[in-house]
């Protein structure tokens, strides 16, 4: 069974700093997809970024980028120039396709003014 592990329960940085959230996963499959979702205090799940395992190039979305290391089964999220609105829970998730998402335990990120 696939598992996703986020080893940092909480992180805190100052506004405008860069922060990296870690995620590792376990799968025997070769084709799969990885995601980061943001959950602000409203508890809505907001898609931040996605990565296809067959692509070597790391995905980027504005201030958000990933470091995808397929051999190491690692998928970290980097947030540059962090903003107060980035304060949220961040979940790493895995899927093989049009199938269930498997989530990590989440990292609570606080951006301090």
């Amino acid at each position: 069974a696939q598992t996703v592990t986020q080893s940092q329960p909480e992180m805190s940085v100052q506004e405008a700093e860069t922060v990296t959230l870690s995620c590792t996963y376990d799968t025997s499959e070769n084709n799969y997809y990885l995601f980061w979702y943001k959950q602000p205090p409203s508890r809505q799940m907001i898609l931040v970024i996605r990565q296809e395992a067959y692509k070597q190039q790391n995905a980027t979305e504005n201030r958000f980028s990933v470091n995808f290391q397929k051999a190491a089964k690692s998928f970290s999220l980097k947030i540059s120039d962090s903003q107060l609105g980035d304060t949220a829970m961040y979940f790493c998730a895995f899927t093989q396709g049009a199938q269930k998402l498997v989530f990590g335990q989440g990292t609570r990120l606080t951006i301090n003014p």
Partner: protein
Amino acid sequence: EPEVTQTPSHQVTQMGQEVILRCVPISNHLYFYWYRQILGQKVEFLVSFYNNEISEKSEIFDDQFSVERPDGSNFTLKIRSTKLEDSAMYFCASSERTGNQETQYFGPGTRLLVL
């Protein structure tokens, strides 16, 4: 921009009562999912639905749970006899038919409290 909607946003019920949570997926999506999140815990998969039938379900999704697509737009989750431990946030999600099936878009959730 199209989005997944869910009603109600909050529901309080008594233990043993039936509840129906409603979702309207994005209109051109054909894969539908329900997840739940107990307060302070991670998001857990309940069930996936495609082509008018369940494609996968978790061990959480026992006989007390059922899903239905009663018309062309709604997707419902029914809990027949609620338990205290059913208190959680319930999320509906959907994904496209082709081209981007892997990306699931979530609704805002229904916060269920069982007393």
